[in-house]
């Protein structure tokens, strides 16, 4: 327990007054000096604060999605029979966590056996986070004695904010996104498409009996033909193509990755052959099996923004590398080497394969790349998180305002070239935006 220096001024004042009182013979000055001495003396005899307290931490969600607020609750309990007049608690949060509501610190006083709770909200980017020790400063009633403890809180000490495919709520995927794509051809399916003249051999359950009752002619109902498609999600992982969130929280890369993961899960769930590529050279060939799913998961787990200057180095294995096993060789062979602004990736894309570019659209390079994909005959969609969501014009800096305008222009430009763009407003569920994307895509 450390003594705190708070009363030197009062002591010096009392000594000066005593001296002055003696010099000029004013006993009243001695009384004032006496007040100061008595108060300092009483403050000095204030008892030491107890160290019997307990702190427990709990989280509203220990596996949140990026950008999803998490409520952290601290329960503080005084286990002693003495009052804790001054308890100052500070959370040691990892730097990347952003407190969006409340404060991660609290100052309180607790009666004997009493308890209190303190809550605050934070948002986290992708990753695993471990809460550090709590810094607890205690003082006595007069604040003349104090100590600092570093305490590990009971309860939750870590949480994960992830985009793993397996962890996504598949049951929520109630819409069709890319796979089982409706076509403009009639055939077996669910949605009514047209009727045609009956041909021998047509199934009985597709004969329009109502038409036969009215006109006496047989006709066959055709439904919209649905076919599985091949989709490649291209993730814009250029460091220059991303921005930090305004006011903290997950950056545009985290949100882009999250959006891609949701899209991939939906696509796989619909039975589409699904692949993923990054502009820095990661490549997973379209597929539907468990192996593909596993490799997609690996890419999403390890993806990081890459400085474009570092993309020059080919990341595929050499031909004479005999130490790798056959599986790893295959994986390496699948990797496209994006040393030319994604041109090689364009050549690797399967014919008639559809492309979903996931990018915040903060520069023109990605727009040009979308056009190139389109010119190679691929149906292109863009899935883009809006990093200025919910920010009023006054909250944005001049640079942010210009950036927002430029991004809107890029979206308009792409839409004008028959490219479907899902402009994901972060306040709305991603699924709603995916649904809009599908609607635009099929029309």
């Amino acid at each position, binding site marked *: 327990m450390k003594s705190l220096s708070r009363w030197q001024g009062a002591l010096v004042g009392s000594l000066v007054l005593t001296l002055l009182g003696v010099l000029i013979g004013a006993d*009243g000055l001695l009384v004032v000096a006496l007040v100061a001495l008595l108060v300092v003396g009483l403050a000095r005899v204030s008892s030491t604060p107890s160290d019997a307290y307990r702190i427990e931490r709990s989280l509203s969600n220990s596996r949140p999605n990026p950008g999803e607020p998490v409520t952290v609750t601290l329960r503080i309990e005084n286990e002693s029979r003495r009052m804790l007049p001054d308890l100052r608690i500070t959370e040691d949060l990892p730097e990347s966590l952003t407190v969006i509501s409340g404060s991660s610190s609290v100052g309180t006083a607790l009666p004997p056996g009493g308890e209190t709770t303190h809550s605050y909200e934070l948002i986290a980017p992708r990753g695993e986070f471990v809460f550090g020790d709590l810094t607890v400063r205690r003082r006595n009633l007069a604040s003349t004695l104090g100590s600092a403890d570093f305490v590990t809180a009971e309860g939750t000490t870590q949480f994960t904010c992830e985009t793993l495919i397996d962890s996504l709520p598949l049951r929520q995927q109630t819409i069709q996104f890319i796979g089982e794509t409706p076509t403009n051809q009639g055939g077996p399916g669910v949605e009514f498409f047209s009727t045609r003249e009956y041909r021998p051999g047509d199934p009985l359950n597709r004969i329009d009996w109502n038409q036969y009752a009215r006109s006496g002619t047989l006709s066959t109902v055709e439904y919209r033909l649905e076919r599985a498609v091949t989709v490649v999600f291209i993730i814009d992982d250029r460091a220059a193509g991303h921005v930090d969130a305004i006011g903290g929280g997950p950056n545009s890369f985290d949100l882009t990755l999250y959006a891609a993961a949701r899209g991939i899960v939906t696509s796989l769930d619909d039975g589409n052959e699904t692949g993923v590529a990054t502009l820095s050279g990661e490549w997973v060939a379209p597929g539907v099996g468990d192996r593909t799913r596993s490799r997609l998961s690996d890419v999403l787990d390890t993806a990081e923004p890459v400085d474009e200057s570092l993309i020059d180095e080919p990341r595929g294995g050499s031909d004479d590398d005999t130490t790798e096993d056959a599986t790893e060789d295959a994986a390496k062979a699948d990797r496209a080497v994006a040393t030319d602004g994604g041109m090689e990736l364009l050549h690797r894309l399967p014919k008639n394969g559809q492309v979903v570019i996931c990018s915040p659209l903060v520069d023109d390079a990605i727009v040009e790349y979308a056009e190139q994909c389109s010119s190679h005959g691929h149906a292109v969609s863009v899935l883009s998180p809006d990093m200025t969501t919910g920010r009023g014009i006054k909250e944005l800096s001049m640079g942010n305002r210009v950036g927002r305008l430029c991004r809107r222009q890029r979206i308009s430009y792409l839409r004008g070239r028959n490219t479907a763009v899902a402009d994901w407003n972060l306040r709305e569920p991603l699924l709603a935006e995916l649904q809009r994307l599908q609607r635009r895509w099929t029309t």
Partner: protein
Amino acid sequence: MSIEYPSQQSNDPESTVDRLRTGFGSLVSSMITTLRVRFYSLRFGDWFSILLTLGVVAIAGTAFVGSTGALLAVASGLTLALTLVMTNSSNPLLSSLGVAISMFAGVLAAAVGGFAVYILLQTGFSGLFAGLGIVSLVLASTGAFLAPIRSITRLAIARSTLVLAVGMVGVAGLVGVLVAPRAELRGLATEAGFATGQTVVSTLLSVDPVHALSTFFFLLAAALFLIGRVVVRLPVERLLPADRRSTAVAAIEWVQQWRVTLVRGSLVVAIVTGIGLLLDATVPPDEESGWLLEYTQLLRTEQLSTVVPAPVDEILLGVVASQSIRSVLYVVIFGAIGVLLVARLLVALRRGLAWTIVKLAAPLAGGIIASIPLGMLASRFAAIELLIEAAPAGTPPDLIEFLQTVPSFVAGAVVVGILLGLAVLALLALGLLATVIVLPANTGSTALASIGLFGVAVAAVVVGLPLVGVGVAAAALCVWDVGEFGATLRTELPGRPPTLRAETVHASGSLLYCSAGAIGAWLLYRLAVPQIQPPAAEIAAVGLLGSLGVAALLGIFLAGSN
């Protein structure tokens, strides 16, 4: 034939008005936002300290100098705080307004100062403490009103002083513009200027025994302080080879530390001797104060030489009463001020010419614009006649003649300039206090409020209000305790975490033991002191010295344990 576009024809006046309206709206909005942020940042402890300080100032001030005096002190504290805050604002419009507000601060500071001097002249020795009590009331109020700002730095005070000085230049410019076109007035103004200059120079170089000792130490402190500021600005270490820089920096730091100590020492000597000389000059010799005057008169240089032993007296008088040394000190002071102003200007220009012009134009405009209505008011209430009547004996006749001749509005503007000068003096006094006492960085306002209340307590017991004095002393300690507690909370728990419960508990505890201390001290005073009847003066002296020793030991023990 010039073509006038319809948009230009119709929209220009409107757009100017619109711009002004928008600018004013922006100013008001900015002020409201700033105030809201400041007030929102106040915690329970801050509100407690503010309300307790103002409450005690109101109650004790009323008991001490009446309700008018208390109101005067509170208003003076408010205007001084507003001046300090607004003239430090980065918003040019706010700093202009700050110059206007400072005129009221000047009026009120003059009123408080005049009141204190009046009491001193009326009541003699105890009047000195009464006067200090009134000034302490102002300090406590200023501290309370500065609570949202928290820190009172000398840099901020210097910045405000500079802004007000520029405002004075603006007022002087206005007077010059009004006087210059009229040849007669111009001649009178020139003569008055010369006469005033001569008087000022002779006063500055005066070595009158009535003030020589005190003014010398003031000058010494000012010169040392300004030299230190200049040395800080000069990149001395950069002029040296790299291998000698660390030595040079260490030497400079050592010198600076001693310089700071010398400045504080000189100021303390100057203030103490100044108070002594003030008493000597103003207190009428009677039975009550005769013993004191025997000592205070020794502070006059001609008396000092009679008690100081032989070689020392000549050296002391040779230094303190030397006009040439004073001249050197003045050269150093004004030279350093010039260097600092040039350095400040260069720093400002680095931020851009437009920025510099705006920063200079704001106080100039504030001084000119505010002097128009205030000058009219001053002329309407014949303030210049009052000023002439109250002018000291040494005022140059040319100046008085000029002031009597000029139009009333010009005279009013001169009064406004003088009020600005008084505000500058009030700020300098605050800076002096901040230098001597060393206000803590993050609890400057709390410390100022507490020191002010303690001063009121001292004054109250000396003028015969011991109960008020004890109560105010306890309140001063409580204000410090709660305010400092809030500051540590703010430091250790940044942001705005919930701390109400801890602050409430601490404030309750603080009230409890400050009240206990006050009651204990009062009981001791009422019960124990009358029982002590020393049989002889020598025994009383021994007893007092003994109690002083005990108090010192107790103080050292408590300081050590803290």
